[in-house]
């Protein structure tokens, strides 16, 4: 472990500084520490993200996450735009799961304006939300394995499945990734019965994909050797840091907003919340595969029960939408954790304050706790297992 006193100020240069690093003397151990900037352009960082690491040989003694490279002023822009105009921007937060971002924002505005959502729209939201979770988890596992060095095969299997889901999104919303589908008081367009049949077909094929994926990976000795006991996140650290989502549940803390908050219509579905035991990378990897299976269960139930009717609250306004003054916090269990939108309205056409609580950003703050003492190669895995999207971290 590094003594905090040996930060930049105390560290002295030894010899020539390397291109991307410099030597710092650690007075405790007497060995030379090498400071390396991992990123911002590093394939393992899943975007533009930098980790300033201090290395003792191969061992990490200090890690400082540096982000903000993808900052786009999302929250301030939201204050300058009308409520509706912010909706397409939320697609670009966590661009893998645009539909759950839409959902969280719509939920916050509906709370603010006191709007009701028709039954069918709620079901459609659950269906697209769970499809989003399936494709996100498949993809994040695929990328984790890719980070491990299995370049291609598992990721391509995940992509093959994701492609089917993205085609469904395109047929419903018009866009594969930037769906911009939900509106305050419902959904933009209704799903046709052909679309629902198409979803049923894809969902029927998902368990086979899950089997295949588990067969391919779960008992792989190399994977187990690389991930078990690596990057342990203790539950008390996770809770005090505010970590949510699969990363928290992998540490054995049962907290799923679908169960805790029971927003939308999640109280109607039977599903379990998988829990990890060790909180290591392997648990975080497995928890996603298990959650994927639970999502399939929810999808099957929702597709069976979906009622007819309108998908938009008839009183909902597209233009000149002015919710009464007040504040609201809408949160959902996004695939990466708790995604919340906090809005303050002063009665005008745009929010007075617009704040996003992104799960990736909060989950990233405990990266150093997980990485200390591990090798450089493990940092890549640990970061991959947290499952971040930089669009959401930097906003």
């Amino acid at each position: 472990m590094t003594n905090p006193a040996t930060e930049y100020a105390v560290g002295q240069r030894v010899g020539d500084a390397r291109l991307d690093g410099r030597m710092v003397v650690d007075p405790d151990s007497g060995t030379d520490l090498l400071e390396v900037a991992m990123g911002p352009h590093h394939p393992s960082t899943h975007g533009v993200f930098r980790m300033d690491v201090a290395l003792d040989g191969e061992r990490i003694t200090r890690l400082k996450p540096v982000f903000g490279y993808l900052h786009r002023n999302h929250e301030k822009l939201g204050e300058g735009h009308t409520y509706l105009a912010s909706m397409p921007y939320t697609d670009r937060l966590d661009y893998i799961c645009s539909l759950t971002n839409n959902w969280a924002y719509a939920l916050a505005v509906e709370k603010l304006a006191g709007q009701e959502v028709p039954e069918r729209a709620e079901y459609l939201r659950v269906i697209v939300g769970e499809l989003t979770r399936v494709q996100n988890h498949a993809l994040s596992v695929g990328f984790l394995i890719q980070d491990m060095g299995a370049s291609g095969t598992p990721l391509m299997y995940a992509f093959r499945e994701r492609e089917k889901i993205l085609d469904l999104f395109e047929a419903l919303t018009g866009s594969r990734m930037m769906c911009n589908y939900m509106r305050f008081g419902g959904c933009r367009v209704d799903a046709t019965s052909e679309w629902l049949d198409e979803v049923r077909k894809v969902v029927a094929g998902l368990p086979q994909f899950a089997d295949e994926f588990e067969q391919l990976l779960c008992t792989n000795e190399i994977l187990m050797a690389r991930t078990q006991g690596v990057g342990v996140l203790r539950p008390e650290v996770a809770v005090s840091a505010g970590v949510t989502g699969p990363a928290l549940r992998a540490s054995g803390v049962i907290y799923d907003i679908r169960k805790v908050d029971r927003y939308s219509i999640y109280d109607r579905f039977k599903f379990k919340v998988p829990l990890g035991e060790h909180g290591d990378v392997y648990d975080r990897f497995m928890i996603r595969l298990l959650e994927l299976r639970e999502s399939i269960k929810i999808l099957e139930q929702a597709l069976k029960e979906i009622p007819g009717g309108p998908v938009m609250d008839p009183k909902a306004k597209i233009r000149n939408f002015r919710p009464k003054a007040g504040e609201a916090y809408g949160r959902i269990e996004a695939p990466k954790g708790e995604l919340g939108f906090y809005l303050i309205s002063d009665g005008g056409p745009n929010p007075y304050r617009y704040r996003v609580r992104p799960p990736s950003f909060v989950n990233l703050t405990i990266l150093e706790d997980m990485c200390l003492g591990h090798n450089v190669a493990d940092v890549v895995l640990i970061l991959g297992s947290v499952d971040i999207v930089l669009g959401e971290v930097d906003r």
Partner: protein
Amino acid sequence: MLGEGILKGLAETAKNFAGSYVSKERLTTVQYPEERIAPIEATRDFPFLVYDGEDWQAGLRCVACQICEKECPPKCIYIEKSKDKKPDYVGKPQIYPARFDIDISVCMSCQICVEVCPFEAIKMDTVFELATEDRFGGLLLDRSKLAKSNEYYHTIHPTEAAEVDARLAEEKAKVEAKARAAAEAAAAKAAAAPAAAAGAPAKTEPPAVKPAGGAE
């Protein structure tokens, strides 16, 4: 046994490899420029302006109300109103856009302009091969490039276009019925007051009515 998990995984890969020769399910890629997958009907990318009839300038549905310009989140639309007026699809004289530019390098394809348009004038296109050497001029589309016929709209989004046409026809019928009722009332009034009839005949005929679209 050590290595069992790896062997299991390899068996899975082998199954997929061999399967890709027989099953279409396992071979999902296409060789893009030569091979293309069928487009999905709901697809959207950039907006275009719909016009009725043959002449795009006369048939443009847009009345330059500038709602889309105001609602566009990234503000990529620029509209200048005309000084004169031209008849719209029901025959009512309306101003039209003297200039209508969309910078598609800024546009984020969110479709909000389509949602807020009360005149069914702006719709989403499906073209995607828009690479150009001219980074600024080539991606700034003006009226003449944006105007596309209703027939084209029907070819890319048939279901949606049919709904729009039905809506427009209904509106047109309503306007015509109203005009007819007004004309009849005026005629009755004129008959009741024959002394004034010589002076000014009530205006009965609305201006030339344009066809609503290609679906009918």
